[in-house]
């Protein structure tokens, strides 16, 4: 019962979001007061739905790549063989985080051209740190008795990793991915400055034509997406931590 109200709110937010993306005209009266006379209240330079889908696709690809690389690195540096790479890996992902995405875009465009690619690179670099740090924490704070038992039962290194260490670290790794994906959803908007198809287009168009309704709808769609995806990840974490017996 305690979860009922928040879940109803989430469901309502999702329904409104989908309705807005599919039939934006329905919401015109709400946004009309925000614009000067004759200016359009609903974004009219492309489909909001397709912009949202390509925004999500870009974030998904970048986060997926960041997850593979960050978790891979975390696995490597928590093995005896890779322990000496820990400082190096930490510096690399830290640089990815400290380098502003705008600067990455500026540097990437001359190399890979305009479009999705520079955005993907910026989001990928920006997303590494939370996933890497969380995966490191998850893999290096496993209860010693369980790690010992996994060796004692005769599991090979690979079996210990896949059957015991990763499943037990999964809730913490998921928390890292959740942080990374939320940051990327917001950051992806700046990709539109280098012609990536994202919801940033709507915001930029609004800023250029002094259209508050555009800015607001672009921003709100991103915000609602971020909240819903964040909550979905939180629910998933709760589920896997119950299974991992960490509750």
């Amino acid at each position: 019962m305690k979860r009922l109200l928040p879940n109803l709110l989430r469901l309502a937010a999702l329904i409104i979001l989908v309705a807005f993306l599919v039939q934006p005209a329905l919401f015109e009266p709400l946004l009309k007061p925000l614009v000067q006379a004759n200016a359009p209240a609903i974004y009219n330079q492309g489909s909001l739905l397709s912009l949202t889908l390509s925004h999500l696709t870009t974030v998904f690809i970048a986060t997926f790549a960041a997850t593979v690389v960050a978790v891979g690195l975390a696995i490597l540096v928590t093995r005896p063989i890779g322990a000496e790479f820990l400082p190096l890996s930490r510096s690399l992902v830290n640089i990815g985080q400290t380098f502003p995405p705008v600067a990455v875009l500026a540097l990437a465009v001359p190399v890979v051209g305009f479009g999705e690619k520079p955005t993907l690179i910026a989001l990928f670099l920006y997303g590494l740190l939370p996933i890497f740090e969380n995966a490191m924490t998850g893999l290096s704070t496993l209860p010693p008795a369980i790690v010992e038992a996994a060796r004692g039962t005769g599991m090979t290194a690979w079996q210990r990793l896949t059957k015991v260490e990763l499943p037990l670290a999964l809730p913490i790794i998921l928390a890292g991915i959740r942080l990374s994906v939320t940051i990327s959803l917001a950051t992806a908007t700046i990709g539109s400055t280098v012609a990536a198809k994202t919801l940033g287009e709507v915001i930029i168009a609004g800023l250029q034509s002094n259209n508050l309704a555009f800015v607001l709808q672009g921003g709100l769609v991103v915000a609602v997406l971020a909240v819903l995806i964040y909550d979905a990840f939180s629910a998933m974490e709760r589920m896997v931590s119950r299974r991992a017996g960490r509750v």
Partner: protein
Amino acid sequence: MIEIDNITKRYGDNTVVDNVSMTIAPRTVTVIVGTSGSGKTTLMRMINRLVEPTSGAIRIDGEDNRGIPGYELRRRIGYAIQGHGLFPHRTVAENIATVPGLLGWEKSRIEAKVKELLSLFQLDPAAFGPRYPHELSGGQQQRVGVARALAAEPNILLMDEPFGALDPVIRAKAQEDLLAIQKHFGTTIVLVTHDMEEAFHLADKIAVMDKGRIVQYAAPEDMLVNPATDFVETLIGVGERPFRLLSIGTVGEAAEAGTAEGEPLAAATSQRDALSSLLWSGREALPVVGADGVPLGRVTLASLARRAARPR
């Protein structure tokens, strides 16, 4: 049979196990005791190669334990540790099935084995199999830990302070269960503990370790009568000697013909506990019954006093 041959383990300049040799007879319980840092756990962990020795060799049934990869060796040797080390994301049944699964047993065989072991440890397979470890009590978790160690029917079971985390009541029960299971399977058990009481109760032979060396390796009675060094004597506790002697034998062995009044004692009770019951009830003798409740005779205060005296 486990033959430990001049085994040494060094970490840098620190010698943890120092040139130890001992032979562990099959189907016996050997308890390694010592203070913390004496190297007893390291010695045991070299048997299943969780720790690789610096020098020396260990042979199991005549074969060098380095003849096969470490993980294959460990699948053949049961291993139970303090705090049980159960996998929290797997059910009780899946935990017990760990080693058979690694060995590639057929599903039906694994299921039968899990059922057999759960029943043997007095846990209802239907009720406990699907549960997760955190849903069990400490004593139940410990039993599942031992059941997992025995699942692939190993000849050897290594136990590292297996009862350390249990309260005294459950610990006594767990020790009885272990002895019953050791008889049932004929497993060779090597157990590490710092609890002398536990050592005298369980062991066929005790190895006392101090600073990486074995200072005495003997049957409990011999150790009581002839402690090799002052250290062993201190560890046994001079004031405890008659009681330790009594805790080795069961009341069944001390039973004599005759009858007595009072609450009967089970034959498997240790003589020490029998003495305690006699003293507490204020009686000269108490009846003794077998596991099935059949009267076996009686045990007297005088006979226990005789048995507690220094053997000659």
